[in-house]
């Protein structure tokens, strides 16, 4: 019996039961489109978080002044000004697991250029900061270690600052006023977008730490900084680096009036929870696909029962075991793959609409679509086999006697 004959037989059966076939397929359509939508939303979310992690920089540790407990009283982190440039230099010198250190003296300042002004965060740091955050200049240059040593009044601007101060003008070479002090713009940084906590990372101006201390924010003790960023030499050295940093500063302060934190870890936890969430959504979607499969099985069982006499007749004129089996299996597979096909279209469309409506990040890949489609195929085989098997096992006389 040829495949064409089988296919034609299946089509005749669907024609005889249009509404039923449609409703059965609908179960699979919903299941497959849910799987596609959940896959794309879930993958999109974790991709976005990964991007954000990458934008922060990898293997980063942050050191903040103030301990978690001081004399039994909980203190807010960063409230006690205790860290200094000297601490940063000591860390860079003494810790073998540390690749780079960037001391940071930062604050909010009013920035003026011509008749435009803008309040933004100003970060005073060293040239290593750009390396650590993998942040490059799109025009001009970032400042050098010479600029830091000589406390030159140069500034590197984030894109948001550029957007708010300059209208159709190249900022490089222009002089802006930060807290009234003239700074020359030497570079503009590439766009980084939002941080994982939702802050605009491009709304910033970066200047040499020495200039920030001397001209912008002052110091209550020599070399005062607000925090330092430390980069470990590799992801597997994060714990070593943290311990080394702690020991190095402890030796200088004689008390634990500072806190060392793994910056990346926090983000990774966030990513993990996004993953768990999308896995959860996906499993709910898969359940609906399985429910669709059970719908197919149910209808196929009804169909076998209804067509018992037909099966008897087919057997009486010479249908073999697999002729009968293939007939019903093919019907189930056609229903499920047809549902899979429509489900993919619906899933792609609905994830697109979701991304537009809620401005979610979605990620659709061809392999995912193929997997969802072959899943619907196997649902057809899986849930079609039992009814087909049952049909083929009928005894011809009994089947013929069935009314």
């Amino acid at each position, binding site marked *: *019996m*040829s495949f*064409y*004959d089988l296919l034609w037989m299946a089509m*005749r*059966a669907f024609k*005889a039961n249009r509404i039923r076939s449609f409703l059965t397929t609908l179960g699979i359509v919903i299941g497959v489109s849910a799987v596609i939508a959940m896959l794309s939303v879930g993958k999109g979310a974790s991709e976005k978080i990964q991007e954000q992690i990458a934008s922060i920089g990898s293997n980063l540790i942050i050191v903040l002044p103030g301990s978690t407990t001081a004399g039994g009283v909980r203190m807010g982190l960063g409230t006690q000004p205790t860290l200094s440039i000297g601490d940063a230099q000591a860390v860079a010198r003494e810790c073998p697991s540390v690749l780079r250190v960037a001391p940071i003296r930062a604050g909010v300042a009013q920035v003026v250029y011509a008749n435009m002004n803008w309040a933004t965060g100003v970060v005073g740091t060293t040239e290593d900061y750009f390396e650590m955050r993998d942040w490059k200049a799109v025009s001009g240059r970032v400042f050098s270690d010479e600029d830091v040593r000589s406390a030159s009044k140069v500034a590197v601007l984030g894109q948001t600052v550029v957007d708010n101060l300059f209208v159709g003008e190249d900022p490089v070479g222009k002089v802006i006023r930060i807290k009234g002090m003239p700074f020359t713009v030497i570079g503009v940084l590439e766009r980084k977008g939002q941080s994982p906590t939702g802050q605009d990372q491009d709304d910033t101006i970066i200047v040499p730490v020495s200039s920030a201390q001397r001209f912008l924010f002052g110091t209550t003790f020599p070399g005062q900084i607000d925090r330092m960023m430390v980069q470990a030499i590799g992801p597997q050295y994060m714990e070593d680096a943290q311990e080394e940093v702690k020991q190095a500063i402890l030796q200088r302060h004689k008390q634990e009036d500072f806190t060392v934190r793994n910056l990346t870890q926090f983000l990774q936890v966030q990513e993990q929870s996004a993953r768990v969430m999308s896995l959860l959504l996906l499993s709910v979607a898969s359940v609906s696909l399985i429910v669709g499969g059970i719908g197919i099985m149910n209808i196929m069982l009804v169909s076998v029962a209804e067509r018992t*006499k*037909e099966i*008897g*007749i*087919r*057997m*009486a*004129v*010479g*249908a*073999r*075991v697999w*002729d009968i089996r293939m007939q019903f299996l093919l019907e189930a597979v056609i229903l499920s793959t047809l549902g899979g096909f429509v489900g993919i279209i619906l899933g792609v469309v609905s994830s697109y609409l979701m991304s537009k409506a809620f401005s979610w990040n979605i990620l659709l890949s061809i392999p995912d679509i193929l997997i969802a489609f072959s899943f619907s195929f196997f649902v057809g085989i899986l849930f079609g086999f039992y009814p087909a098997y049952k049909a083929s096992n009928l*005894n*011809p*006389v009994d089947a*013929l006697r069935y009314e």
Partner: protein
Amino acid sequence: MALIELRDVKKSYKLDSIEIPVLKGISMIVEKGEVVALVGPSGSGKSTLMNIIGCLDVPTSGEYILDNIPVQNMNRDQIAHIRNKKIGFVFQNFNLIARLTALENVELPMIYAGVGRKERKERAMELLNMVGLSDRSGHYPTQLSGGQQQRVAIARALANNPPIILADEPTGSLDTATGKSIMELLLSLNDKFGTTLIIVTHDPTVASYCRRTVRIKDGLLVE
């Protein structure tokens, strides 16, 4: 030459763990080209016997040799092959598939024989023509009279040129005149193709058409 040979064939049904014997030891031989009428009172086991001869059912014990091959040793697909190629079955209630047209019903045995689409359609048309229904090929069974349906069923039984036609009360649901024409059609097959016929009937006039009559009573043959 014996085409059909039954040796002490018994069939019993189990109802609530009580064995009810229906066929109590049937031995018979049907030669190639014979026309046999199988008669007997209602409930005597005629249909049961026909189903066994037609390979739709298996005996509880005994041997059935068809065309020199013992059927009881065959697997399900081999038996399906015999039903397809060697036997044409005509039922009292026609047993046409309601969803399929007359032509498609006649095509059915050829589909399972692997006959190509074009050849199949041509042969099915030929057969419908032979039973006098060439103008009804696109009709569904519900659009045909009882006599016409039985003609379609006969055309279907002939599809793969089987050497044996088994008819279980083929005229049972038809009026006398229609019944007569169906009988004539069946007998003409024997004349034209030498087809072996076994016909179950209650009707003495139908039996009188046949050259040999086999009587069955309470599951035993009384020749």
